[in-house]
């Protein structure tokens, strides 16, 4: 009877999974198809005439290594900085009392709601003025901090029982020990999930880099993808899918490699000891 009741759930879950994974399979399969087959044989997941042409094309036409490297640099830099600044700020908001704390927090957090397009032009002017146009540093700079991160990590820190901090205080642990020895490990799931979110978002970011980056050699992957999408000329769907696959391959790979670790940080929180 145990098996019975969970079978029902498994069926449900598998349907959900199918919906969720099918597009990815579809993308991969299409990237190995010729355009005519992409149109004609929509349901077939295995190409009749598998072709590498789509991949060859992007590798030949684009400095793909450089573009990938750019994307990696931007995504890592943005993620690391956002996480560091967020952790620091969240820590201050949770474990210190100071004047104007709540007001400052509300002000910072309310910026979560501001669409990036709103601040885009003034930011572009700033970046231009300091001569970082067409430079990935210019892409990175305005993204060194993030209210969302502060918010999430603060939430997580607030869920850590005070008694652990108390125990550490008794050990004469200073702020850095408490931060790195106790709070961070216990808030690790939150920090990692926020980091993942930052990474993914930055990896796929498009609007801002488009504005800043001009030369193909400075491009990031999502910009490269745009090269194959055109409303007027028609999108070369197969090539676009090949770029998409290339674009997703690194985060996907990273995720698959660290999946165990990532998932376990979420599940092993066991904060209540």
């Amino acid at each position, binding site marked *: 009877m145990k098996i019975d009741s969970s079978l029902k759930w498994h069926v449900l879950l598998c349907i959900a999974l199918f919906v969720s994974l099918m597009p990815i399979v579809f993308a991969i399969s299409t990237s190995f198809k010729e355009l005519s087959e992409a149109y*004609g044989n929509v349901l077939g997941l295995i190409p009749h005439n598998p072709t590498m042409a789509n991949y060859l094309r992007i590798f030949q036409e684009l400095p793909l290594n450089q573009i990938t490297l750019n994307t990696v640099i931007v995504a890592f830099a943005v993620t690391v900085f956002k996480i560091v600044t967020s952790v620091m700020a969240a820590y201050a908001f949770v474990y210190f009392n100071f004047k104007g704390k709540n007001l400052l927090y509300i002000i910072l957090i309310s910026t979560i709601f501001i669409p990036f397009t709103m601040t885009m032009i003034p930011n572009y002017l700033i970046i231009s003025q300091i001569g970082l146009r067409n430079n990935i540093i210019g892409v990175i700079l305005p993204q060194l901090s993030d209210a969302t991160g502060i918010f999430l990590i603060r939430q997580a820190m607030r869920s850590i029982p005070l008694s652990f901090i108390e125990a550490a205080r008794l050990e004469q642990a200073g702020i850095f020990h408490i931060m790195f020895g106790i709070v961070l490990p216990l808030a690790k799931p939150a920090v990692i999930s926020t980091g993942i979110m930052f990474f993914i978002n930055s990896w796929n970011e498009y609007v801002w880099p*488009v504005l800043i980056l001009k030369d193909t050699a400075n491009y990031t992957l999502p910009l490269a993808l745009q*090269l194959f*999408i*055109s*409303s007027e*000329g*028609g999108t070369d769907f197969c090539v676009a899918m090949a770029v998409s696959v290339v674009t997703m391959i690194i985060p996907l790979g990273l995720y698959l490699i660290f999946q165990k670790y990532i998932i376990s940080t979420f599940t092993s929180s066991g904060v209540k000891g």
Partner: protein
Amino acid sequence: GSEQSAQGDKVKIEYWHVNAETQGGKTVQELVDKFNAQSKDVEVVARYNPDMYKGLMQNLQAEAAAGKSPAVVQVGWAFLDYFSNNFTYSAPQKIIDKDFSDDKNFLQDNFLPNVLDLAKNSKGDQVGIPYSLSTPVLYINRDLLRQAGLDENGPKTWEELIKFSDTVKKQTGKYGFYMQEPADNWAQQALLESNGARMITDGKASFASEDGIKAYQAYADMVIKTKSALHISWDQGVQAFVNGDVAMLYTTIAQRANVQKGAKFDVAAVSSPAWEGKPKKLPAGGCFLAITAQDEKQQKAAWEFVKYLYSVESMAAWTKGTGYVPPRKDVADAENGLKSFLEENKMMKAATSQMDSVVPWASFPGDAGLQAEQLLLDTRDKILSGSISAREALTQTQEQINNLLK
């Protein structure tokens, strides 16, 4: 930005284009490389701007706000007025007159007047030179037409097209017709103006004439009444045609490569249909080149480059790479031009053969022009969803637009 490079004292200029890899991006780079190789004192950097002319315009906006500007830009026809009103540019003839007396007659000699007129704004200034030219054509699925017992060469008139469409629907159960529905009214303009309506008369919207209403309603009836025409977004419409689910596709010649590569059936392109007894009026798609270089040296360099792009060889390469129709007079027949290419690519003929019907793409004047265009888009959705008649919708919208334009 456009800086002077120390190396070789070449003037470095930027050329902004919208050509994705699927739409001639490679050709842009080839042309630029060739130019750079042969030019002693100019070096061009080509910069792709995603998201078509709108995207380019956005980037140009940001650039201008930062006090910079490229030297040569592609400007979509829809942005003709907006561009000329808001950006600093140099009329090509002005630069020619100042520094390049040899080229004094370059424009008159090489371009049809109706083509040159395409790049004139509402004040009548020649803002730039037409570069990418496209017209709407009718792609047909011959297999389907045959299956429905119809003439495999497609309809010649809209009236015929409507019948064809209904027949296909009845005979095969598939859709008969799809007219492109991007974020512009380009194709719809062809439909209306060919029936004798005018989108704009004397700077005012005038599409809600009887002719306009009739044409639009006929189109809407296919969608709503007989349900033989498809009302769907552009990519999906093209996909449906290429997949063989729609018999006729009315869209730009620029989609030729895509359709040709993707379709597995007997596909052809024929010229835009006309309304019975009326002349065709087909809006020009694509773009013109404008010179936005600010200082003299740059302007000179820009012209050198522009002139190069309009050479017969360059034009031919451009057409081959993109599927656009050459705006220059003598390219199509020249040996070093497109002669052999056009012979091989029958589909192109549908477009080149209707060049004499080209009219400017309606661009509502003034700052509200873009908004007027948006209103027309909303109107299209309203009419095609059947929530409101073409008459009512067009009349209302016309009034609204004219209020805006005041």
